[in-house]
């Protein structure tokens, strides 16, 4: 493996995995919350909020990256607030995770929202008459019922995070071992004549990882279905 992959490339693989897994898992609660609000609540500005959530999909990644930079950078309004708390995104893998999370957010939210919309509220009503508090119902009835949608959203999000590049490199640049993810490495290789071979090797690795994730999610979904 180390023969076939240089140590730097190997680092990029591990970093990409770490960034994608953490971006996906850390953004999941937020995605669930936002999906729930969008699916279940009606309020003025609902449509605008929904549009806002779609924004990272609409904006060119470079723009998203730039906006992240001026917001979450050490000099940015949010970044400078968080820095004293020890939370730093600039030039850190955490920033790469933040970028990946934001870029995959609309996809995850959409899938989960579809799940919420398909849940029969009569089941939640029934649970309420059995004495369970709303929040308990949410975790014991609603969430398990939308498990397939959560799985779909997570898979989409993870795949997107594995492929994310434009916003990441603009926000946290490309520091080997810290912020050089697989797509950054691939991009760099494609910038030099004759780099295609090495790039394709990394692409294959990226594809294998994401495919594995998809297969696992399909398997989990099937298991949940047959159990029900």
């Amino acid at each position, binding site marked *: 493996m180390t023969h076939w992959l240089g140590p730097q490339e190997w680092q990029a693989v591990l970093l990409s995995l770490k960034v994608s897994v953490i971006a996906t898992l850390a953004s999941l609660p937020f995605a669930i919350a936002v999906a729930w609000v969008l699916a279940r609540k009606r309020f003025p500005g609902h449509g605008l909020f929904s549009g806002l959530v779609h924004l990272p999909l609409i904006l060119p990644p470079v723009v998203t990256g730039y906006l992240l930079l001026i917001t979450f950078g050490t000099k940015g309004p949010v970044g400078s607030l968080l820095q004293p708390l020890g939370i730093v995104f600039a030039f850190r893998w955490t920033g790469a995770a933040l970028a990946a999370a934001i870029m995959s957010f609309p996809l995850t939210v959409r899938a989960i929202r579809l799940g919420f919309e398909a849940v029969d509220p009569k089941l939640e009503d*029934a*649970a309420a*008459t*059995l*004495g*369970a508090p*709303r929040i*308990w119902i949410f975790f014991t009835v609603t969430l*398990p019922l939308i498990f397939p949608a959560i799985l779909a959203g997570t898979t989409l999000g993870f795949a997107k995070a594995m492929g994310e590049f434009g916003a990441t490199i603009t926000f946290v640049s490309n520091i080997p071992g810290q912020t050089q993810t697989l797509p950054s490495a691939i991009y760099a290789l494609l910038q030099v004549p004759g780099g295609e071979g090495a790039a394709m090797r990394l692409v294959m690795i990226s594809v294998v990882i994401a495919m594995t994730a998809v297969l696992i999610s399909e398997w989990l979904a099937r298991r949940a279905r047959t*159990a029900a």
Partner: protein
Amino acid sequence: MSLSVAYRHAFPGLALDVAFDAPGGVTALFGPSGCGKSTTISAISGLMRPDAGRIVLNDRVLFDGRTNLSPQDRRIGCVFQDARLFPHMTVAANLRYPSRWRRGAAREMDRVVELLGLGPLLKRRPGTLSGGERQRTAIGRALLSDPALLVMDEPLAALDDSRKAEIMPWLERLRDEVRLPILYVSHSVPEVLRLATTVVLMEKGRVTHAGPLTDILSDPDLAPRLGTREAGALIRARIEGREPDGMTRVMTAGGPMLLQGIEGSVGTVLRLRVLAHEIILSRDAPTGLSALNILPTTVTRVDGGLVQLALGDERMLAQVTPRSIEVLDLKPGTACYAIVKSVSVLPS
């Protein structure tokens, strides 16, 4: 306990204006399809907010426009027309679901499982259950939520008679021992007669009559609403003693009767259901019949084919053809004998 319901609600096609009191025991909600029974159940259990009104259970205001208790706080166990089981949980997990928040009934688990024959289903998921199995699970789940009031929307419609017969006594026990009040929607008159103490008749979003079951049954105007084959009355009887062949002697306001297959000790008061079409009238005391119970009585009212009879201070209905009314010359005040073919017994 008492439940007092009064609410108004407007649906595009139907304006509901429902008001009745359920004094305790089992109250049956009765009425044609679409008259608003399920809506009433929803309003009481807190799943629908009516436009206006006041709903009070045991002095707790559940709803009055300002107050609107959540379903969680109402402690009303619901059995829905569609079972509404949690599809991702086994039957056992469905049954256990309320126990975390309503600890009172958790220890009843084993009894409920046995009673409803849920043992072999415990590990199954609702998706593979038959319609009746599903409804049984839903009843069990509601019973295990330690409710202050049980509301049931046609709970037994999907069950076969023998299963119904098994569950009935449990509902009766809830009514009599636990004194759990029940609001019961059903189209099955026998079910209602057996369980109900109060009947609320609804029509097109309005309550047309509400009152004790006995009043409705012996009222020639209301009785037909339950279906002619079901018209009849409830009379009280006290167990007097047992005969050597196992029959039981009881005393009614109209005199002694012999009944078969009765349990209960001497002194127990029973309610006897006497169907109008199972009474034969005779001007003379008949003899040599297979019917053992022949009660002297007086006609109090004649209304179409239904003859109301006095039995002491109680009233009974007999269904008689016009020709017989003429031949036997039945009119208010006529003394005659009621040959009672069979009765069903309801615990008092």
